[in-house]
């Protein structure tokens, strides 16, 4: 549609754009859905308004004592006026839900990024640990999944050009995914009112060609950064998590090897999946979902670790290798293969 308007009304879109740039894989789908809905609405709306004006003119009052005709019974009109909106809206519901599911379900090979919202800035973290503030540099044609949380109030991560939006909620992780199809710079905005500088809490998303992105990541301008998992490993030691959660002969805390993603039997009898949210909660509030067979010994870490540190810890926990190596009391940290060029501080025993 954009090309069409640009062809016949050159310059129009520059002054009065109707659509934001279509720069992600889902943008076209969302626009098509909106366009069809708009056309249906225009058709229905115009029809009703035309009928309304026609009736108001055709049956206008011609004498002060004139009254209308007898009551009209037309059950077909009622049936049709219920059936048509029902059929149209249910059809659009199915289509809209399909687009929504595509928006919500990231592909399995999506590269994982992390973002924090806080009053009034956005912090982004690349898989190799590189951090940016209010600038988010990503490669084109690469599915990207961003896990987000807030350090204070609710924010909302919004990139109009990608047609994606996801609230960023303190105390929990939410995720958004997208795949940019165009290089260039796009606005990233906060869509949930978050206090004084809400309208200035925006950033720029810079989409680079994949090789440019790699070059940018390895660029001289950045100091060598540590990966989230290696920062997490240091924390794991300094917070003394390793005392109870690594040594095979201790029953004080469950071993974490192979935990992420597995099913956990709770003391309450329930089972939960050990996803990021579970790991996060168990660090902050260990008693909330106590694992079966353990006593609540662990202190709470609420207020002692920041959201970024939590993210690092979880990143580290995911790299702990299964049982076999743990018996020796050592930990192997999996090599991060997403970002060649940045070596991983490998796992040493302790």
């Amino acid at each position: 549609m954009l090309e069409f308007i640009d062809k016949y009304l050159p310059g129009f879109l520059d002054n009065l754009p109707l659509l934001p740039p279509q720069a992600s894989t889902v943008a076209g789908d969302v626009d098509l859905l909106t366009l069809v809905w708009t056309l249906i609405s225009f058709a229905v709306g115009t029809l009703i308004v035309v009928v309304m004006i026609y009736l108001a003119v055709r049956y206008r009052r011609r004498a002060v004592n004139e009254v209308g005709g007898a009551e009209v019974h037309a059950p077909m009109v009622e049936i049709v006026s219920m059936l048509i909106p029902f059929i149209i809206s249910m059809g659009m519901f199915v289509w809209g839900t399909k687009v929504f599911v595509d928006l919500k379900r990231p592909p399995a090979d999506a590269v994982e990024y992390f973002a924090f919202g806080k009053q009034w800035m956005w912090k982004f973290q690349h898989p190799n640990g590189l951090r940016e503030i209010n600038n988010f540099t990503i490669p084109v044609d690469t599915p990207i999944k961003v896990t987000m949380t807030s350090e204070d109030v609710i924010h909302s991560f919004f990139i109009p050009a990608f047609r994606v939006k996801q609230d960023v909620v303190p105390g929990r992780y939410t995720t958004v995914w997208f795949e940019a199809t165009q290089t260039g710079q796009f606005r990233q905005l906060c869509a949930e009112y978050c206090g004084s500088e809400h309208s200035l809490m925006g950033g720029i998303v810079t989409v680079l060609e994949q090789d440019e992105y790699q070059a940018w990541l390895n660029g001289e301008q950045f100091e060598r950064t540590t990966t989230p998992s290696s920062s997490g490993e240091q924390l794991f030691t300094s917070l003394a998590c390793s005392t109870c959660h690594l040594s095979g002969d201790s029953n004080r805390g469950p071993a974490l090897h192979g935990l992420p993603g597995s099913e956990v039997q709770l003391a309450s009898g329930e089972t939960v999946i050990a996803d990021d949210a579970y790991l996060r909660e168990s660090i902050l509030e260990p008693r909330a979902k106590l694992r079966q067979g353990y006593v609540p010994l662990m202190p709470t870490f609420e207020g002692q670790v920041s959201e970024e540190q939590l993210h690092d810890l979880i990143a580290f926990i995911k790299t702990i290798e299964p049982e076999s190596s743990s018996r020796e009391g050592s930990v192997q940290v999996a090599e991060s293969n997403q970002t060649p060029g940045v070596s991983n501080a490998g796992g040493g025993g302790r």
Partner: protein
Amino acid sequence: MSTPAVAAQPPRETYINTDWSLRSWLLTIDHKRIAWLYLISISGFFVLGGFFALLIRLELLTPAGDLVSPDTYNRLFTQHGVIMIFLFLIPSIPAVLGNFLIPIQIGAIDVAFPKLNLASWYIYSLGGLFIVIALATGGVDTGWTFYTPLSSTYANSQVMWVAVGVFIVGFSSILTGLNFLVTIHTMRHKDMTWGRLPLFVWASYATSLINVLGTPVVAITILLVGVERMFGLAIFDPALGGDPVLFQHLFWFYSHPAVYIMILPAFGVISELMAGFSRKRIFGYNFIAASSVGIAVLGFIVWAHHLFTTGLSVYAATVFSALTMLIAVPTAVKIINWTTTMYQGSVSWDTPMLYALGFLGLFLVGGLTGVMLATLGIDIHVHDTYFVVAHFHYVMVGGAIMGFLGGLHYWWPKMTGRMYPETFSKLSALLVFAGFNLTFFPQFILGYLGMPRRYHAYPEEFQVLNIFSSAGASILGVGYLLPGLYFAYSLVFGEKAGRNPWGTVGLEWQIPSPPPPHNFVEGEEIVVTDAYDYEHDLIRDDLDRRVGPPRDAREVPVG
């Protein structure tokens, strides 16, 4: 009329001239006088809320936030929302037109609990006072939605005063709703069966149900925010172990039905106007009545469509999307039935009808974009943008306020006994319609382009559309100012309206204007007909008297 109206007679006693003292007004238990107390209060708050809107539109003329500071701007839109919703829209039609008309329309001399009715106004005023104190002592900047944890732990403005004010005003809604429910159940004239009730009464009935069932939930929610703010009890604050999204569920469980509290009474007014100014039995009476109740019930199970971007599960989102879209069905029934009522009617283009037709057009846009918003794939992109702002203003302003103004223009002669200048009133209806569209239509495009709501400063590419919007707002402002002027003018200089100036059917048009203190003239019988029965001899005679033979020659006693 058994007593012919002759100018030489001493002035007839009406509910207005029965006692002019201020005391008699402030202690009145007459539902008609209480309606006036509300009309004056809500008009004051409407002007205040409109003033905030004016400043918002002025600020948004330029992309930079240069007129007021960010904190001031945040207070402006918060206070605009709080005042317009809680102090203007929710009480507008029910407390003014409902209070005045429901007892008369069902043939009763008052509501079931007249003292409670007066108490409701005092409770409303007390709540309003708390909110005014909050404004005077620094204002509030949480947004009218009070989302936690911004409102509970991060806001430094007068959140508590406003919260307590909203809490108190809620009781006014609950008590008024209760009063209407009992009145409609127990006070109907012996001939006024449920199937004969005017549709305005049906709509008020449905609204009252929501008020009684829904308002306590928002009261509890606000109480919980207060408890958390004051005592640090963990409910919504994640730092304490609470859940901020829980607040949104509780808040919208009331506030979505509250949308119907605001729009259903307008539906009732529009039904009266479409039938009255087509002088014809409304098309599909049963369907319109049932659809009001249907919307009230459905309105309770769609709240989570306000939470599609919070990370609600895909399954929950799907269910709420489908339920929301179902509301298109009863809404379409109403629009089609209203439109079809004009078929073979005698359609007059008097001012109230202009408002009614304007309502149909604007509400149509509001409704259709509402179904678009319920579509999950679209909502994610336009959620919390100006698209939503445009949508709910089309419903709340284009719908509810157009309905309120239409109703006020229709029943003004009954309330005051005076007519207002016709040319000015038609001009105002046109200005409101044109100004409204110029203000809010560009906001649909702005929203789709990605301009988030509640933005003090915005990217430059959005300026052209914002200028359109602000220009429209100035026209809209004039359109709203005019009725205030000519209504005041009509009180003194307006032509005498007579009993039934529009030639419409309804018990209220069988009694003098303004009505006597106890609504119905003692000794005069009233005739309860089916609603909108324009084939009844009563109305035929009434209309024929206006033309043809002189009035006295065909004076037929009513009833």
